[in-house]
């Protein structure tokens, strides 16, 4: 599976690059663009999962997040599709209702309690991303 992961990682990197230069002829997302999320902001949330929906076109984490005074706010977090998530190690049973979870999200521009997952730290400490990650650039060749 390692070779598969590396392959999809490269594919994703290329797709992101292509999207950035707006030079390709085919859709770079399957369902919708991510303009509703502020991809320049990252917000860390820690809370208790109320449901994990392994569905298409997107998976979702529903999570109750207490603030510093103990008041609980509910958040809906959008993820990639199961197909995309599987390329970064997610499984349909990676997390469950009742699990404690820390996530980093790109929040909605509207200010509502929603966002797009960037990464999640699972109860066992494992960190999973929302799809394949860009590989670091190769080290420069020494002359």
């Amino acid at each position, binding site marked *: 599976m390692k070779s598969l992961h590396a392959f*999809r990682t490269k594919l994703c990197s290329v797709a992101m690059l292509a999207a950035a230069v707006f030079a390709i*002829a085919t*859709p770079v*997302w*399957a369902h*919708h663009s991510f303009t509703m999320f502020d991809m320049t902001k990252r917000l860390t949330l820690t809370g208790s999962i109320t449901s994990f929906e392994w569905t*298409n076109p997107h998976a979702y984490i529903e999570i109750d997040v207490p603030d510093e005074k103990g008041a609980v706010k*509910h958040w809906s977090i959008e993820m990639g599709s199961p197909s995309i998530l599987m390329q970064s190690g997610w499984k349909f049973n990676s997390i469950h209702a009742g699990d404690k979870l820390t996530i980093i999200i790109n929040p909605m521009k509207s200010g509502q309690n929603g966002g797009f997952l960037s990464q999640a730290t699972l109860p066992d400490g494992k960190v999973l991303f929302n799809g394949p990650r860009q590989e670091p650039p190769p080290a420069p060749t020494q002359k």
Partner: protein
Amino acid sequence: MNLKISTATLLAFAPAILNAQSASAPPDLTGVWGIYRGGPGSDPKFRPPAPGPLVLKPEYDKPYQERRAKESAAAQRGEQLDNTSARCIPYGVPTMMAIAIYPIEIIQNPKQVTIISEAFSEVRRVYLDRPQWKIEDVAPGYYGRSVGHWEGDTLVVDTVGIKPTVSGYRGMPHSPQMRVTDRIRLISSEILHDQITIDDPVVLEKPVVYTVAFKKMPADYEMVEFVCDNNREYVDENGVVRLKLHDK
């Protein structure tokens, strides 16, 4: 005339017969293929060539450009305008051949080539043993009717019968007269190219040509189902795509 052929004679000619068959046999495209867009440092032989221009007739170009300008302005505001994919409507032919980083699976036999896209689980059936129908005899749909034949090592697929409401290449409009030609061939054992030509004498000044490249997925890859049964995106009264949030 004596038609009896001895076993020894058959055995003597068998290698020649087998060689002749393998020489004329089409390449086997069967397998799962991931989108390959190339990138810095990639071999230009494997990269898809740059797409050709999309030149619409003036009466179609004006509303098309206006729509693109509105989409661009909405994106600047952080909004996406209504589109078919946000409503989980499949892409159809030819767009389904390359969606984000979702692979396609090709299953080939002498009479049919079947192409399945992982995104939205879309399916094209390409019949190799029958002629194409007239466009007006094909029920308009997302995949139309596809027939194919081999020209040397290239699978040439002819598709007609795509209904005009199906999402067009780069959002282009298209008429019932649209004809899509795929020329699919192996560039190497690991790289596949599909050169797609869209011809629409009603809408286009000249055919559009673009190429999608694929790289063979690892042999253990299993296609993932994609049934759109939890679409939380919806389109509001202003035609903007919104996300439905839950409160528990």
